[in-house]
């Protein structure tokens, strides 16, 4: 090898060693390189719908709605959150639990819980709450996809836009009907639970990872064309910072000598 070639290689190797010994991790890639950061912008007001992909994903959709609400509540002005839970949805999914909300970072005194009996009452309560000026309104309704139509959603969207608060409507019964639903909401997400990485046979069961969702943006008003409604993205929600991160989350590996093996499935590596 020529002398210039070897000096280049030395420079290259030196840079590589410096990168391996870097102090402090690089900032993780936000789930937003392609416009998701605008969608998840906490200051964004308006009506947002969250539908589960399958009926079993209803709890994941509820968790995602709560994550969005948490992000909005971190902003000043410090408003309250109104949670409207229909009786049937409460029987299927349970009621919000104060200790869990506390652990996730929401002080329970900012929450007002309203229990309604029928989908019509839920929609009425959501409209009243949006007009009253709470910071976030989360509603879970057992309405069918056919019962929730354009007129109802238009009233809600108008009320949300006028008062500048964020409305999140969760429709657990309309699982998988994301494409078929016609409404005046600004955004619509379809949520599924993110399956854990496959485990080799015989290996001990790992601890569950952070809360992760698989997300598909079915409708985003104002960002037409930025999202392909068919692509699924995996995102992780960090409760402490109330931020969404893309999966896999890049973490720099500790510097050590390792042979050039193909990485095992699910292992996270620093970008080199």
């Amino acid at each position, binding site marked *: 090898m020529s002398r210039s070639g070897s000096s280049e290689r030395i420079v290259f190797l030196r840079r590589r060693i410096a990168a391996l010994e870097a102090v402090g991790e690089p900032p993780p890639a936000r789930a937003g390189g392609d416009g998701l950061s605008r969608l998840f912008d906490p200051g964004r007001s308006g009506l947002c719908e969250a539908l589960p992909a399958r009926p*079993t*994903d209803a*709890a*994941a959709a*509820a*968790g995602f709605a*709560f994550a969005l609400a948490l992000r909005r509540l971190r902003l000043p*002005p*410090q*408003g*309250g959150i*109104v949670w409207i839970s229909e009786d049937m949805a*409460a029987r299927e*999914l*349970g*009621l*919000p*639990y*104060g*200790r*869990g*909300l*506390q*652990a*996730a*970072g929401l002080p*329970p*005194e900012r*929450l*007002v*819980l*309203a*229990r*309604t*009996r029928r989908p019509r*009452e839920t929609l*009425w*309560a959501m409209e*009243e*709450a949006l007009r*009253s*000026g*709470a910071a976030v309104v989360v509603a879970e309704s057992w309405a069918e996809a056919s019962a929730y139509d354009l007129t109802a959603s238009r009233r809600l969207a108008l009320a949300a836009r006028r008062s500048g608060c964020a409305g999140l409507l969760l429709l657990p019964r309309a699982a998988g009907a994301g494409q078929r639903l016609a409404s005046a909401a600004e955004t619509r997400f379809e949520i*599924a*639970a*993110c*399956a*854990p990485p496959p*485990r080799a046979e015989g290996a001990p*069961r*790992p*601890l*569950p*990872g*952070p*809360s*992760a969702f*698989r997300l598909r943006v079915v409708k985003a008003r104002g960002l037409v064309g930025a999202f392909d409604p068919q692509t699924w993205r995996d995102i992780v929600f960090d*409760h*402490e910072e109330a931020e969404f991160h893309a999966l896999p989350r890049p973490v720099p590996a500790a510097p050590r000598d390792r042979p050039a093996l193909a990485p095992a499935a699910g292992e996270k590596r620093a970008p080199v």
Partner: protein
Amino acid sequence: MAVADARAMRPALRLAEADPQADAALLDRIADWCRRFTPLAATDPPDRILMDVSGAAHLFGGEAALLAEAERRLAAQGFAARGAIAPGPALARALARFSRLRHVPERATQAELEAIAARLPVAALDLDATARHRLDRAGLRSLGDLLARPRAPLAARLGSDVMARLDAIACRRREPISPRFEAPDFMAERRFPEGLTRQEDIERTLEGLARELCLLLERHGVGARELEAIFYRVDGAVAHIATGTSRPLRDPETIALLLRERLAVLAEEGLDTGYGYDVLRLGAARVERCDAPQEDLGLGKIDLAAREGEGGGLDDLVDRLGARLGPRRVLRLYPQATHIPELAVALRPASAPAPAMTETVPPAFLRTNGAPARPLRLFERPEPIEAVALTPDGPPLRFRWRRLLHELAAYEGPERIAPQWWSAPADAATRDYFYVEDREGCRFWLFREGLFGHESANPRWFVHGLF
């Protein structure tokens, strides 16, 4: 007398079975209806109603007119009623039953009252048979005879409570009646010659009543916390609407709005207006001191909602939601000082005053990687599952919940939560909680109830919450 004797005397007699409970209920309903004349109406079982009409008679054109109208309306509803008006309740009661005199004017002197009482028979004292027989044999047949006698030997003979009744009838001592419902301190009412049948008319009347009531409240510097609207139907039925607020209210529009929401709920279930409501009354059952907000000079009244900011907006929302859904369906979360998961947070109505915070708990319950260790959603009752666990202390390998099979992919636990040994019954079981993730990614908070071997041979598994 026996039924046979009665039938013998009058063969065409109609018989009905006595139902004292139904009679008492009917008397209560008649007393509720009688509140259209005055809020203070009391029942005097088995078949009497006492009304305190002091100060209310002029609305009906005098006491005699009030009595005549009451009797006429009761007769129209099918009841045979006899009434009397007197300065004292016991005298009125006795007059209604035993005398032809029906109206004793208010300004009667004590001597006149005693003269009227003297004409009543001894039966007006409600004595038992032996005492009455004794008095009869002694020749004392009317109250006048008793009133003329010296008191001490009479008291020794008859007893002190009979003497108290005698004094009450002679109006020497006036006792108040105990009405069925407390009269509200602030009240506005409207009477109509014909009944109101349309909903818009009722709502407009309520708005007018709300304005009158708010003027009254403003004069006394208080705001309403509990409101009650009573509608009296022409044919005797009475309807109530009650609503509570979380702050003292004095604004007519807000009051009218709350009442309209309540009325809408009733209308959905079928408010039967029949021939219409002819008396509407709006009262503030509970009031609290409420200072007027500072008004801006020259610019008129400032929009209160804009100025009150956040706290006011959420409180108003709580009131509106509570008016439509019911106060028990609008809740707030209050953490409690207990480690049992389902009791750790109490859900209380948002309009009730907040209890003193028993503890300030820093956000705890975090798992090893910083994620929350308590579920976001908790079922009201833990749902049983069928689970197969490999080891007695371990998590279930697979479990069936709501007819779906879930296979374990990752878990964290167990977290042992033991019952309160100081207050729980002896057979309360320890719980081992697991945070479980299945192959699809759904996360559950499972627990096993009962330690294997120690507490039960067959521990059961439940799902308590979802993450």
